């Protein structure tokens, strides 16, 4: 059972959380403007890196908040966590992903990843 740093409540056991997939895949503001390929990428394509991964969690059985975290998927160790809607903190290593995601990301910094 992982220990997960909720940015609001502090470090708490995994049993209180729900994993919610890769972070920073913002829903397009105008879905209708995306072609099928871009929409398919938004819905389904994931970085799935072996290494540092920006991901979403919800402290479901705690404060109820969704938040973002960077976790190393090889060691399962959390590196940092931060409030939903905020940018991935500077200085956190970003997993190399050669293809920029097709959709808009909500942070400048993540756009590269």
């Amino acid at each position, binding site marked *: 059972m*992982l220990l997960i740093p909720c940015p609001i409540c502090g470090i708490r056991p*995994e049993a209180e959380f729900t994993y919610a997939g890769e972070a920073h895949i913002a829903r397009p503001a105008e879905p209708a403007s995306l072609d099928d390929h871009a*929409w398919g990428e938004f819905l*389904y*394509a994931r970085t799935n890196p072996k290494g540092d991964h920006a991901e979403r969690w919800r402290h479901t059985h705690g404060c109820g908040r969704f938040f973002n975290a960077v976790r190393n998927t090889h060691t399962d160790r959390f590196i940092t966590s931060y409030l939903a809607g905020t940018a991935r903190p500077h200085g956190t290593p970003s997993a190399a992903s*050669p293809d920029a995601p097709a959709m808009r990301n909500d942070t400048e910094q993540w756009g590269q990843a």
Partner: protein
Amino acid sequence: MKHFSAARLLREAVRGQSGWTEHWRSPDRPAPAYDAVIVGAGGHGLATAYYLAKQHGITRVAVLEKGWLGGGNTGRNTTIIRSNYLMAESAALYDHAVKLWEGLSRELNYNVMFSPRGVMMLAHTVHDVQVAKRHVYANQLAGIDNDWLSPAQAQAYCPPLRLDAGMRYPVLGAALQRRGGTARHDAVAWGYARAASALGVDIVQNCEVTGIRRDASGAICGVDTTRGAVSARRVGVVAAGHTSVVMAQAGVRMPIESYPLQALVSEPVKPCFPCVVMSNTIHAYISQSDKGELVIGAGTDAYTSYSQQGGLHIATHTLDAICELFPQFRRMRMLRNWGGIVDVTPDRSPIIGKTPVPGLYVNCGWGTGGFKATPGSGHVFAHTMAHDAPHPINAPFALDRFRTGQLIDEAAAAAVAH
């Protein structure tokens, strides 16, 4: 390759086993060029190489494996084999595999111990019954054996099953596929490796693919590995949990997430469990291996990971489910608990086919249930790589379906795990 048989076993017994030779060649490094390269020496990759050589005459093939062959999910799964899937596309794919399983030991001259002892899927609620019957009828129409059993019939087939009134989840019936069963997972990898090697395929272990090369036109021209570069015009990625990592080397983002999936075995006991039992409502499945351990699995951990380990709470939940179904096993003991990395697609169906990159093929997304498909998957994937076009059976499983929306959503359709 020397033929395996009882007679040979006897001969070797007499002369002190001195005549046995290596099951497969172990080249230290890959040759500079091949007609086809397979990334990943799991069951699917090895089977692909075997069928490329055997059925399509493409023998200049390398299977590159970053660890030891068969050490991925092939070596760590609960070995359940069945084909009673709901969607016609899936049923066709998995039944293609089951038919190959039935003759596989002889085909490979390697006893993979395919044991059609029956796979029974329990229904605990009225909704389960509806779902199970829908499977049964769909399978029967497709010519795939799957029978609906009353609780008493289920217990007759699997005497350890309990029908006590006081159970939290009573057994309301079961769907039974008699042709389903188990096989010896390691032997599947070894048997394919041996047969492929005998046909000229190079299996190079401890050789990790670190880059995928593309020529000016964007087409595949080779791979980089920890043991040197290899040129090839056809590369098939069969890397299971690591698919996203390998495909990223070619610049392709995949609809895949990799989750830890745990399994465990008990201490070995004398035969006490005749078949495979799965309960998707309670979330556990169990069978007994030839050696006598109860082989038990359940659902994945909740987060993506490449750690090959998961949380203790998964094992405890798995076992509370097993003990609820089979309270007599409460005093049995867990001997070993391990994890694999399963590659999960949004519709829980595999991806087998071409990619946007010419010459690059992918076979992945088998998630928690691809062992059963090993022979069929290798067979149709070899066809795809040989012809640069899918076999009719894997045509529906194209990567493109995530654009068109033509998903093959077994999970959503039936809430059935593997």
